[in-house]
């Protein structure tokens, strides 16, 4: 994915100002920055929820800047949310099945008549959903519980399984370790590597936990007040005086 001079204004407020970003295939890239830096706004533009004021978003060679969110999902971009957004009144399995919507074909009449093809598809999708839930490490007794009933950690897993269900090539994770203890964060870090290795995913994540960022990402992009202030390998970015300034303020001389 490539982000090309993207700008987003809300009224007079420039939330994202001329940000360019390259996410090479099979890489893990982190997006960091203080609160309100425009990270989630950028995510929302990549997934089509917001339309950029100017600039382009390219997926491979394809311009997806003005595509609808569901089209972008069908092209292979999936995401999770900063504050988990599961469908609370649906079970874990159903949540994942909904995630597979774009890869299903059943139409109105096929569903009403329950054609053999629809029946087959339905069975296969449910089976696949259970596999995915097992893959992200949800215990089987929780599969048929309502998402709203699940504990926080399990909800995060279901959300990742739901995103994976659409068979993405690019996975966007918005603060996946929020609310986790160091052990859990470390486990998630290795899970992300596993995802890349086994599912050949490209991962772009927003993250505040510097240990996770330094550990997992090949490249780091830093946003502050909507501007990109640094970009590069983790060690380089960590040493960048502008990044330190953005996070800690100007040192008094």
């Amino acid at each position, binding site marked *: 994915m490539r982000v090309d001079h993207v700008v987003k204004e809300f009224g007079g407020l420039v939330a994202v100002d001329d940000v360019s970003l390259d996410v090479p295939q099979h890489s893990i890239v982190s997006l960091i920055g203080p609160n309100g830096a425009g990270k989630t706004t950028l995510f929302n533009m990549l997934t089509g929820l917001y339309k950029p004021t100017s600039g382009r978003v390219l997926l491979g060679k394809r311009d997806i800047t003005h595509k609808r969110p569901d089209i972008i999902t069908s092209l292979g971009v999936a995401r999770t*949310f900063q504050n988990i957004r*599961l*469908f609370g009144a649906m079970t874990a399995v159903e949540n994942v099945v909904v995630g597979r919507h774009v890869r299903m074909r059943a139409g109105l009449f096929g569903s009403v008549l329950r054609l053999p093809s629809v029946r087959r598809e339905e069975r296969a999708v449910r089976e696949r959903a259970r596999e995915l839930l097992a893959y992200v490490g949800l215990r089987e007794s929780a599969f048929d519980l309502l998402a709203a009933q699940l504990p926080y950690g399990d909800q995060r*897993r279901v959300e990742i399984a739901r995103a994976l269900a659409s068979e993405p090539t690019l996975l966007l994770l918005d603060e996946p370790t929020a609310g986790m203890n160091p052990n859990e964060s470390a486990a998630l870090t290795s899970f992300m590597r596993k995802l890349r290795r086994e599912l050949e995913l490209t991962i772009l994540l927003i993250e505040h936990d510097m240990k996770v960022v330094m550990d997992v990402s090949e490249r780091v992009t830093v946003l502050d007040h909507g501007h990109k202030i640094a970009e590069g390998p983790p060690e380089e970015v960590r040493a960048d005086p502008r990044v330190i300034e953005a996070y800690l303020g100007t040192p008094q001389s």
Partner: protein
Amino acid sequence: MSDPPGQPVEELDQNAGRDAPPSGPSGWGELRAQLQEWRAAVDGALPPWWPRAMAVIAIAFAIVLPFFFSLDSDFMNATIIAVAYAVMSLGLNIVVGFAGLLDLGYVAFYALGAYSLGWFGSDFFFKAHIHVLVSKVASTLPGIHLNFILILIAAALICALAGMLIGLPTLRLRGDYIAIVTLAFGEIIAVVAVNGQSVQLGGGMTLTAGNLGISAVDSPYFPGVGMFNELNLRPWYWLILGVMLFVLFVNLRLRDSRLGRAWIALREDEVAAVSMGIPLVRTKLMAYSMGAAFGGMAGAFFGTYFTVVNADQFQFGFSIFILSMVIIGGLGSIWGAVAGGLLLGYINYYLIPHVLNTLPSKFGLNFQLTEIEFGIYGFLLVMMMILRPQGLIPERRRRLELTAKVGVAQSERELAEPSAYDTTGVNE
């Protein structure tokens, strides 16, 4: 609910005690828990074909029901109307219950369905001479006369289209704003129905007959059965029962389909649903047009059953009446929508006018119960909201949510365990 064995039971009890109203009798919670336990035990003991067998028995009972009553009894009349209400309630449940779009203008589809009947099943368009599969008498009359089944299909198509048109401007709105826009559309259709008598279509024909009403509409006619009449209500009953079963079947099939899940996902969280690849416009419009189509079918039936299509039938109160059925039955619940429709239909057309109407006079009060029927509905709704806010037959999901106490206790325990994203043991 599966409770892991060996877990301390006190913890759950403490929870229940804390959540119960302090003033309530302490036996209630236990009784309810006991009932739930029994219910679960009964559910577990029943064979898997049980629900299907129950459905077959219920349908068989519904089919033979008229033989227990005289040909034109008040009870049959009320039953026919109640079943037609259930069709409307099922339709509105798709929009409000499944997709979560509060529609306060459902009367518009009653009107359009009824007018479809008026247009295509009477001599209203007297310049035209179109006859398709109708009785000998009707085929000599001027106007458009289609077989009732064709009119049903036409009504469904017209309303589906209208539902989409009404849905379009609400797509960018959420929650209460949708309610206001649909309410306005309902009112617009009602006004058009009244003033349609001034809309000239040429040749002296108008769009509607306003408050004069289109009357002498065709009664349904089927070869072999003959023309329906008001002396024998049984064919009417079986006709609307057939429509209801059809609509019920479509509802049940859609609920557990790709489309049904998309509706519920949109209801639960629109942003997440769209990000998961659900096309917002198409899915919402589908809900509107499906709901509208079913409303239109019931509307066409009402048109022929009441033998007149009159503009003053299409009042805002009717939308609320149907919405009450959906809510009393249980938002989003298919069986609840049927129960709500039947219940309010019976109360409105049988219980109040025929059973309890003279009740006040027995207490020396000088009024009839029909005069305060809206007060009675209001009372019922309020009681319902206090005693059983989830509806008569709540949707499975909501029932799970309401009995989720065990799940919550479980999750509190598990939050303490540092296990999230443990990749060990996963098929690496």
